[in-house]
């Protein structure tokens, strides 16, 4: 009975199949495997240095995989450019740069085209609609460099989505946002774009707690290896202990989930806290909690 399998495969917007990456002989990603279906809101969770950005770069075709393959909408990643929207971790726009929010969104439509852009009513309407969809119309004519972090993220999301991709990748979009702005961005992505418009979203974060209530699935990265499934399937002591290669505890502190390892110096928070770090860097993560 193959039809069920093929139907499943064609439904997949993203299929990451056994991707490994070695840079300068050092393993960065090791046999990472997961798939995303239309409208799914998936968190790529891991500490800084766990390989999140590398994985996103492989999916975007900016980084070659040493082994394995990435298919987007059934096509190899290199031939699927139009299907993916991307919000990078940081952009270079200080207030002196005369680039308005609407200019940046318009570049999402035709930023790779040659020649001087001619003003067109149809394009302006598309840009206005996209700005409205992310509640950014009220600062459409301001320089992007003058906007707050949350406002800039809305503009970047509009830039990424105006070409109507099926998959949206975001690299740490919540870093440096205050709690309220982060919640607004999460709600916008999960409700309006994932659930209503069936855009698949893969969002990377080192702090998973604000995302946990809305994530359909988690790709949890540690030292280049991935555990995937629903939150209940992944955020468990046995699954994460085997992923990290040593025992970890999953603590629920008043609804906030912490992944904690026991070290010689006390406890080390591996995930669930802004100070979470990869093992081997205890200086970043001394929490003061003693056994």
């Amino acid at each position, binding site marked *: 009975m193959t039809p069920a399998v093929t139907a499943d495969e064609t439904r997949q917007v993203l299929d990451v199949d056994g991707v490994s990456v070695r840079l300068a002989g050092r393993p960065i990603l090791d046999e990472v495997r997961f798939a995303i279906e239309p409208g799914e809101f998936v968190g790529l969770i891991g500490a800084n240095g766990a390989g999140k950005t590398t994985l996103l770069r492989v999916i975007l075709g900016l980084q070659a995989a040493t082994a394995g393959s990435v298919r987007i909408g059934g096509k190899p990643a290199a031939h699927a*450019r139009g299907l993916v929207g991307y919000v990078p971790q940081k952009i270079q726009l200080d207030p002196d740069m005369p680039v308005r929010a609407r200019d940046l969104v318009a570049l999402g439509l035709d930023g790779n085209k040659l020649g001087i852009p001619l003003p067109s009513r149809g394009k302006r309407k598309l840009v206005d609609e996209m700005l409205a969809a992310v509640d950014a119309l009220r600062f459409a004519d301001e320089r992007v460099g003058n906007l707050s972090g949350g406002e800039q993220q809305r503009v970047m999301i509009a830039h990424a989505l105006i070409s109507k991709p099926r998959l949206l990748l975001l690299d740490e979009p919540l870093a440096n946002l205050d709690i309220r702005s982060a919640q607004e961005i999460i709600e916008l992505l999960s409700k309006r774009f994932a659930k209503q418009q069936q855009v698949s979203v893969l969002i990377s974060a080192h702090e998973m707690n604000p995302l946990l209530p809305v994530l359909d699935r988690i790709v949890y990265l540690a030292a280049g290896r991935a555990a995937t499934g629903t939150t209940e399937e992944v955020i468990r002591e046995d699954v994460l202990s085997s992923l990290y290669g040593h025992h970890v505890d999953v603590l629920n502190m008043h609804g906030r989930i912490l992944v904690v390892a026991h070290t010689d110096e006390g406890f080390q928070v591996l995930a669930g806290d802004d100070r979470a770090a990869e093992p081997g860097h205890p200086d970043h993560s001394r929490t003061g909690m003693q056994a």
Partner: protein
Amino acid sequence: MTVFAPGFFASSPVHVALVIGGISAVVCGLVGTFTVLRGQSYAGHALGDLAVTGGSASFLANVSPLWGFAGIGVIAAGIMDMIGIRRPRGRDLATGIVRGAGLGLAALFLYWDTTSSSTTGVSITILFGSMFTTSTSVVPVVLAFGLPAVAIVAILFRPLLLSSVSPELAAVRGVRVRLTGLACLLAIALAVSLSAITVGAILSTALLIGPAAIALRVTNTPGRAMVTAALVGLGATWIGIVLAYDSFYWPPSHDGWPVSFFIVALIFFSFLVSQLFGRRPGRVIRAEG
């Protein structure tokens, strides 16, 4: 002080100066906007310094200094790209190394120039411009260098803008970021060579960066900034030429002040005015809601 001193519009050197200076100012304004936008002002400055090398070499070879300015600029742009001008930290390093090597050569060439021709006029021409002594035959060369430079920034307008915001974002959209950056650097090199013949190699960044910096201050979109920069540069250059011509009647010696002084001074004061009175790029205060 007389404005339009007798003979201004009849003077042939003035005609040539108005044409060459005008074309150079417009090209520099259009290209300079992207130089500032992309944070490559230091690269532009280094290309200006290197124009001294090219200019002094062209005197040894007995050709117009414009060929030397442009030739060395294109070579230097290629080397800077090779060393790694794309990486933020590699950028200053690549620029600094190429600039240092070029200035060393310039010292040698200028020495040969002055010892072989036994005049100091050569150095003055290279360092501070030669608009009034340039022959009409250079005008087609000015156009031949200016038009490709403008074509590059016009054709690559959107890819350049997008890769200035984020090289990764541009790469994801299929922009060939490195090639685009190299093309932009070539346009900067050509614009600097025109600037060098107008206000001199030493001052060439002033015409490239100054009008662009003013325009970025007072306009809100990249396109308007380019047009404004071209107009500001053109205004400063033409008014500078008028003042230089008038200055033949000025003290101390009644043989005229250098035109590059006037142009650069006008640009500098316009910049100060734009900083003091121009539209602050600060945030418009809005009602929350």
